[in-house]
């Protein structure tokens, strides 16, 4: 099977500080990969390098495109990469306001990606927006409200709807549950798990919350100081951590 995303020795420095160094892995279709580690361990740098938001110093990010098969996204032309990032890719930001247009209604936010790929029928766009809002548990009568009037959890769900409306194949998530209270987190995780399973999405989830990866991720990568120190099946890494840092991470979680 061809991996959907294949990362080969990706490195990024910030001057003398290491962002991430020599990271390699393959992500297969339908697989959810979690990246955990403490703050400053290079998780977000790695994610941004893969999603094309940052230019890595070296390495390859090969994506299995629908038309041309596996292609190195770092050497693609910019129009091609931007097209990819609004069709086959999605990026869920930690803070919903970075991923939403706050002065555009919820329906407009969901519809933007559709219009960006050429949809020009108002009724169709509206219909898809209604459908997607209901799938992320936002009531239809909020469709013309601006996200500024939404709660934090609703904004995050709206951001997810806006990203998934074009049926992407790969979703990058940067701390999708950060800043939400635990009951809202639980609902969001439940929703995400359902969507990922139903749509057969592949996803890369960066988080420092082990509960999130336990619920969502098939495989886990533990990062420290820009290096991958351990990787394997989620349950295996969490139940039987081998590396000293993974052991510390697992044992640091409060047992209630």
């Amino acid at each position, binding site marked *: 099977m061809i991996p959907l995303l294949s990362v080969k020795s990706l490195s990024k420095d910030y001057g003398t500080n290491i962002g991430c160094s020599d990271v390699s892995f393959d992500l297969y279709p339908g697989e959810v990969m979690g990246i955990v580690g403490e703050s400053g361990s290079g998780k977000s740098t790695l994610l941004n390098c893969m999603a094309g938001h940052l230019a890595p110093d070296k390495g390859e990010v090969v994506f299995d495109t629908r038309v041309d098969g596996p292609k190195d996204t770092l050497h693609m032309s*910019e*129009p091609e990469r*931007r097209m990819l990032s609004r069709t086959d890719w999605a990026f869920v930001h930690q803070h919903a306001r970075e991923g939403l*247009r706050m002065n*555009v*209604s919820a*329906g*407009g936010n969901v*519809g*933007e*990606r559709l*219009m*960006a*790929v050429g949809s*020009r*029928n*108002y*009724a169709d*766009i*509206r219909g898809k927006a209604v459908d997607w809002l209901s799938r992320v548990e936002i009531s239809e009568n909020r*469709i*013309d409200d601006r996200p500024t009037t939404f709660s934090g959890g609703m904004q995050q769900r709206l951001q997810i709807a806006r990203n998934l409306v074009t049926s992407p194949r790969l979703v990058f998530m940067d701390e999708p549950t950060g800043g939400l209270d635990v009951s809202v987190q639980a609902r969001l995780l439940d929703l995400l798990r359902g969507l990922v399973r139903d749509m057969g999405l592949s996803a890369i989830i960066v988080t420092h919350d082990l509960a999130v990866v336990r619920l969502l991720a098939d495989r886990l990568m533990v990062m420290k100081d820009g290096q991958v120190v351990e990787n394997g099946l989620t349950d295996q890494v969490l139940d039987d951590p081998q590396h000293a840092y993974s052991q510390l991470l697992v044992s640091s979680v409060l047992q209630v």
Partner: protein
Amino acid sequence: MSEQAYNFAYLDEQTKRMIRRAILKGLAIPGYQVPFASREMPMPYGWGTGGVQVSAATLTPDDVFKVIDQGADDTTNAVSIRKFFEKTADVKTTTNTKAASVIQTRHRIPEDELGDDQILVYQVPIPEPLRFLEPRETETRKMHALEEYGLMHVKLYEDISKNGRIATSYAYPVKVEDRYVMDPSPIPKFDNPKMEMSAIQLFGAGREQRIYALPPYTKVVSLDFEDHPFDPSRAPHCCSICGASDSYLDEVIINDDGGRMFVCSDTDYCERRVAEGHTGVQVSGDAA
């Protein structure tokens, strides 16, 4: 200071060359906003400094010049710009649309069809159609370069979701030659279909330092949705003075009791129709 102290049409020759280069580039790439080194003009920004500079670079001593402001030849902006060029360029001026070779306009296209020996110069306040959707200039330039115009439709979507129809009634965005999305300056959308014309159209934005252009017979399509097509709306009335039923109308409040009348915004068109013997239905003070 005597008039002779000015170079022809106020600007010096080097400046006019610079502006002409921008105009030629704009004509070569219809709808593309060409940056130019806009000069301080002896009038405030917002009074048409962009249009004045384009007119100054376009005028020759043989030209006949006309200025309109919201369709009218006799409003402050039109009168002062006309006087400006009478004084600094000593060109003939007219209010007759057909007799003019260069027409500078603010917010209207004349009702009379223009010919291929005429140039229409627009005054543009904000040349960037994406400005209020995406505040970063670096980003909007990239969006133009990569033809990423989905955001423009988000604005129209918002219009329909709020008002049930596309409520944008002026500065209605257009796509030029299937490539660049362009702000047609704040003309009413009634005028949009007229932009496919045989005259050259030049757009000057002084404060924003941009020039763009439409060569004759350029394809100009107003953006819309399949199920909400573009509609060049018009008030459902006739002109009270000349009776015209095909012109763009201004609504004029005539008393404190809500009485109003509709008159052509193009004064030259209206006057000519009256001279030809057309009359409208005079409204009484209490008519609605």
